[in-house]
């Protein structure tokens, strides 16, 4: 009798551990841990930027949380550096990169998903592989190329370089998006008397707006955040993009406490557009990723 009871208890314990609620709890816990790890640097930057300069490097954890909101560092960062100029440059580069990427990848992705032509599979593979090549490997060849074309230290050069990795990425997102549009709609368009261009314009384009928004937002964020190529290519102070400018300005000066605080403030300001963009386009971005995950 007692043996039986023990067995029952064990099995009920096991089944309790396996119950959906407990599973959900574990998963939530893991997810929260992951979020903590990922967001910690950002939270730290945000908190640091609001700290008062005097105790910036204090190791006392009580100083980690700002006692009062101190925007001195923000004010100093904006006053002393040319942050707005650099952000303007970044905006120019990112917007043009995004336009160029969409202009090229929207029709390219359509061709790769829908049209029949020789070498299509190879083109698809090359596109994906080109995205997989680490950018540091491309840095020197691209620099040499741009110097020869006299496009180094120019926004056009940087935009072209950014496009080398945004175009494969946006093409990849858009290919998956186009696959979700039924072929029948295109065929109906042809039957109704539309040419390929008019099918693209009247049918595919309006239906791809969510995909274009997702792809555009990604390419904007990629270009906005890009540091390595901007650092290598741009060498005049006035033409720096935001990440390079922040890096150049604050590393050129001594790393005293007030500089660190300003660096944090500048970092928050610079990452704000990405964060806002992501927040706004979140549903499209996640949908874009899910499509890739499920169907790609």
């Amino acid at each position, binding site marked *: 009798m007692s043996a039986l009871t023990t067995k029952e208890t064990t099995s009920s314990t096991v089944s309790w551990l396996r119950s959906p609620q407990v599973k959900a709890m574990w998963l939530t816990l893991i997810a929260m841990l992951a979020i903590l790890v990922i967001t910690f640097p950002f939270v730290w930057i945000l908190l640091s930027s609001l700290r008062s300069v005097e105790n910036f490097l204090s190791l006392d954890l009580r100083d980690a949380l700002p006692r009062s909101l101190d925007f001195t560092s923000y004010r100093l960062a904006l006053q002393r550096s040319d942050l707005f100029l650099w952000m303007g440059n970044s905006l120019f580069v990112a917007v043009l990169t995004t336009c160029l990427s969409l202009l090229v990848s929207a029709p390219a992705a359509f061709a790769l998903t829908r049209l029949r032509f020789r070498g299509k599979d190879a083109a698809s593979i090359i596109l994906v592989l080109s995205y997989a090549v680490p950018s540091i490997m491309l840095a020197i060849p691209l620099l040499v190329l741009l110097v020869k074309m006299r496009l180094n230290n120019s926004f056009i050069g940087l935009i072209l370089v950014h496009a080398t990795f945004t175009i494969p990425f946006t093409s990849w997102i858009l290919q998956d998006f186009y696959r979700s549009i*039924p072929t*029948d*709609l295109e*065929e*109906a*368009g*042809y*039957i*109704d*008397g*539309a*040419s390929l261009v*008019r099918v693209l314009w*009247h*049918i595919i384009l*309006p*239906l791809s707006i969510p995909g274009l928004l997702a792809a555009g937002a990604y390419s904007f964020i990629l270009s906005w955040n890009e540091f390595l190529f901007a650092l290598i290519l741009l060498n005049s102070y006035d033409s720096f993009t935001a990440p390079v400018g922040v890096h150049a300005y604050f590393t050129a000066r001594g790393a005293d406490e007030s500089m660190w605080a300003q660096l944090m403030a500048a970092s928050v300001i610079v990452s704000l557009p990405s964060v806002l963009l992501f927040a706004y386009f979140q549903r499209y971005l996640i949908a874009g990723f899910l499509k890739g995950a499920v169907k790609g």
Partner: protein
Amino acid sequence: MAKIELQNISKTYPREAKPAVQDLTLHIPDGQFVVLLGPSGCGKSTTLRMIAGLEEPDSGEIKIGELRVNGVPPQRRDTAFVFQNYALYPHMTVAQNIGFPLKMRGLSAQAIRQRAEETGRVLGLEALLDRYPGQLSGGERQRVALGRAIVRDPAVFLFDEPLSNLDAQLRGDMRVELVHLQRRLRATFVFVTHDQVEAMTLADVIAVMSTGVLQQLGTPEQIYQQPVNLFVAGFIGSPRMNFIEGNLIAQDGMTFLKSDLLELPVRKCLPDLAANPQARIILGFRPEDAQLTPTGEVELKLELIEALGSQKFIYGRTSQGQQLVVGVDPKSHLAVGDVVNLTIPPDGMHFFDAETGTRLSRHQA
């Protein structure tokens, strides 16, 4: 209005071993309602898509009217195509959907709206012209798809299983409407379906296809009464035709069909068949052609009774184990386990070559 001619059309899809359509020759006269009928994968949709220009044949010639259309893109073939899932443009209103073909032809916005309204009125869509496809029911979407087809007055209408997504009631209604529409427009309709009821009710002419090959072309009556081979005989009719395989044997001045499961007198059979007892043949008869008579030659023990209201079918087995289906008077009182006798009238008998499956000419009574 135009006739359609397919001459020795073949098509194999890339990376497929078997051809989708094989040496198909089909002449569709102007103003006819032709149904391409067959199981899925028989090549009927491919044939339709080749007429529309959505696929190109590997060989053979397609003519619409007097014009050879091989290589002519779909937008210049003057066909209308109604898709199985309607393929309405989700970002356009009903009026814009119907008007799209006209817009592509460069009509003015006013003319487009006017024609769309007219077409909408014909199809009972007046109240829905400014709705989006997502806000419509299945039947309404179907009408919009039809509207988009008829608005431009094409030479040929092509339908790819357009009724298969509708519920039974609506499908019946739409069938009637389609027939009316075709009569009114006097246009050439080519309609693809795997549903034999649809085919029988809609068609002037049915083309039965299987494995990419045209099996039989004929009126619904011809297809039903005189199937040219076992495939057509088995595919058309529900419940399907009974088949009994055996040899014809002449004995005592009578001809018998002798199978392992049945021995059946076949009165006045074709003498040349009876002469060769080695030849394996298949006798087919439709469930509704057999008659229950006390003196019937075949004894059947009932295993299942299917009462459909207007019809009743009994499923049973002979003492040797041959399974048969017979249509009976729907008012008859029969029960599972009953034993009935049935006779197969000579004009209900169809003979097929067991090896090739081809028809051996109809039995003459």
